[in-house]
Each structure stands twice: as C-alpha cells, then as structure tokens.
C-alpha cells in the first residue's frame, strides 16, 4: 500500500489565507491543488512536505475570464474546465488541442492548470502551450503580485521561479489576432508525450509577422525555440519554411533516450510535430480570415 508520510493539513479559504499559512509553516510546506502530481510523489517519498496547504476551496482561483484584453486562467482551473471553456478555445484553440491529450478524462476532472505548471515536469504539455503563445504567470506573495513570462518561469526540471511564501494565482495571455495549434505523439491514451509541439502564428498578408513555437519532452530550453521563431518571422508562410523551422527546432533540442524512445526518434518527432503544428495553425488562420 502506498501512503504518504505524515503531514499537517490546512484548508485555505482565500489567497490571503493560503499566503498566511505558507508563512506560518515555512519552506517545508507545499501547496496542494488537484494533487495528481504531488500526492503520487508523496506516496513514493519523492516529496515529503511537513505541511500541505489545500487551495481546492479557494474560489477566487477557479475562474477563466477576459480582463483588459487578457485571457486569465485561474490557477485552480481544472484541465476539464479549460477543455470545455468556449472563451479559451475561441481565442486560443491550442488549449483544446492540448487538453484533449493531457492525461485521461477522469484525471482531467481533478488536475489543475496551476498545479501542472508548478510541477514543472519536463514533459508537461501546458508548459509548451503557454511558451508557444507567450503566457504570463501571475504570482502573489506577501509583497503583492508580480508577473513573470512563462518563458522565464521554469528554472529547471521540477523547479520554477515561485519562491517560498509565494503562490501562482493565474496564468494570463494577451489576446491578439493569431492562430494556434498543438500536436502530440504519445504511446497510449493518457500517457506523457514522447514529444509534442505547439505553434502560434500571426500573418501580415502572406508573411509571418509573429511566430511562437513551444516544445515539450525533448529538452528544449524553457520549452521554446527562439531560433526557429526568428527564422519564420518576415518570410512566407509555406510548408517548406515550416519544415525548415521544424529542423531548426530539432537541432536546438536536447532529448534524452528513455523508455519512450531513442534520441534520434525524438528529434525527428520534434521536427515533424513543429512543422505540423505550424501547418495546423496556418489552416486555422486562413479559416478565420476567410470567414471575416
């Protein structure tokens, strides 16, 4: 039987309350949201917090909203809620592409957006999604809120800029005219990615005006590839250019061989999935602009 070691348990009722509890229990406390990463780690003693601060009842963190041209996703929003959110899918269809493939439907009922990002697993899907669309983490501490681009949020595997005594409260994304898509290869339903790529495009006529490429599970630094983005901007949006961008992305990855596949296979996937995600985003861009 796998059971976590003993810990103190506190149920926070507000962000202020959670921050107070984090201060009270100090660095050996952990915030628990859906618990679908932390509880398995606690069972295996990979994590052994002395205190758990449960934010499941913190109502103010559960909303998806549009405020001042920003899509704002509260840290306690469950994967299933993001998948079914019309407003999120309308502005960023990449969310629906990715969420359909994150874990399985029952796990998605419990796991949260904030929890997934704070876990900072090198194979996590939303890290690549938010990197592609240039999301921003809203982090609250005793001194107030600070905003950190997701591209600067991760400091290493399982490590983020969220400091002791701080709480990730939301992720927000500036709403602008763009199209986005996500492509993932997994060995079986509900598994982690062998590799996955997210892409966002904004065109000016036939020219790429803005490009975002996010990659997960292949060792891309901070889940994105600026070299491939820079290559695309200013050039035509063609399949040949997307294929080349994929090759550049693959060259800048550092995949490791594991039970999901060898290095060359993962690099191949990084290239192919990048090109496909760009192609899917382009099709959406054209679809949207023909409607208008």
């Amino acid at each position: 039987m796998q059971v976590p070691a003993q810990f103190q348990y506190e149920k926070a009722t507000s962000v202020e309350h959670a921050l107070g509890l984090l201060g009270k229990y100090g660095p050996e406390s952990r915030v628990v949201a859906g618990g679908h990463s932390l509880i398995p780690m606690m069972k295996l003693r990979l994590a052994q917090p002395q205190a758990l601060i449960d934010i499941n009842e913190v109502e103010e963190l559960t909303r998806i909203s549009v405020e001042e041209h920003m899509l704002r996703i509260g840290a306690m929003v469950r994967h299933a809620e993001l998948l079914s959110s019309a407003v999120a899918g309308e502005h960023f269809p990449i969310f629906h592409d990715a969420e359909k493939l994150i874990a399985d439907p029952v796990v998605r009922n419990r796991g949260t957006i904030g929890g997934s990002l704070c876990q900072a697993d090198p194979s996590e899907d939303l890290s690549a999604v938010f990197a592609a669309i240039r999301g921003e983490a809203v982090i609250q501490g005793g001194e107030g809120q600070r905003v950190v681009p997701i591209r600067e949020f991760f400091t290493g595997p399982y490590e983020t800029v969220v400091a002791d005594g701080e709480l990730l409260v939301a992720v927000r994304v500036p709403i602008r005219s763009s199209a986005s898509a996500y492509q993932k290869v997994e060995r079986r339903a509900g598994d982690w990615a062998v590799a996955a790529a997210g892409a966002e495009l904004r065109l000016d006529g036939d020219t790429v005006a803005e490009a975002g490429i996010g990659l997960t599970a292949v060792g891309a630094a901070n889940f994105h590839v600026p070299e491939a983005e820079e290559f695309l901007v200013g050039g035509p949006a063609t399949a040949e250019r997307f294929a080349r961008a994929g090759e550049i992305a693959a060259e800048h990855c550092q995949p490791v061989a594991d039970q999901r596949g060898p290095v060359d296979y993962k690099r191949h996937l990084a290239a192919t999935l990048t090109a496909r995600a760009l192609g899917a985003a382009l099709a959406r861009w054209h679809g949207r602009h023909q409607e208008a």
Partner: protein
Amino acid sequence: MEINVTVNGTVYQREVEPRLLLVHFLRDELRLTGTHWGCDTSNCGTCVVWLDEVPVKSCTVLAVMADGHRVRTVEGLADGAGLDPVQEGFRQCHGLQCGFCTPGMMMTARWLLDNNPDPSEEDIREAVSGQLCRCTGYENIVRSVRWAAEHEAAQEEVQA
C-alpha cells in the same frame, strides 16, 4: 482531524489522519468495499468514485479533501427501485469477466450518460480511456454502455 463526508446521501463523521486516501476511507472506515483499490498511481481507474459532480480517482484524493463534500460510489448507483441502467447493461452484455475494473467503469459510464445520453463508440472509449480492463478487450464494456444509453432513451420515450 475530524471530517464530515456525505457518501451516497448519508453523512459520515470520522476522525482521520490527513494522509488517509479517499479510497481507503471508503473501504476501511466505511466498509464500502464496492470501490476497488488497484494500481495506487492514478493509472488503472478501478477506484473511480464521484466527488461532488464528477468522477475522480480516489487513490489520488485525500479523504480530508472530501470534507464537506459529496461522494457517490458504486453502492449509490442503484436507487432502490432496481439496478441502474448502466448496471443492467453490464449484466445484459457481459460487460465484465473478473469484475475488478467494473465499479470504476460503471461510475464513469453513469457520468458519461448524464452528460451525453447518446454517446458513440468513440465517445465511450474516450470516457473510459483512463481505466484499464484486462479481460474484456473493452468490446463488451462499450456494448454495455450503449445498451444503457438505448434503454434510457426508450424509457424516456415511454414516460413522455
């Protein structure tokens, strides 16, 4: 700590350790052994119960997280007037062999039909994609859920 959990409509008050998992609370504290305990890693899905309105894997939920909430287990599926159509479907279509995955499968199937009364085979396979069955190859599980969907639709027509 003391928790109050409403399970299948009954309020249970218990003193529990914070590290007690919901699956063990149900099985060991309340003796509701219909919920099975399997892989312990949120992969197999045999421990699926409803927490409030949605199915969750109860090996990855702390019992204290259910404090003040409602839980529905396989024991709460039949309403006293007879089997739930999902249960009847599994019986009619031989939706189980060893039966180990069945409680979790049925709880997810009930939720699916409440949200999508006419699911396709693909919808059903997607809904239970986080749950493992090593006997049936899923064929009869899909048939069982379709049986329940068709009989519920027919029942509603009779009532209307």
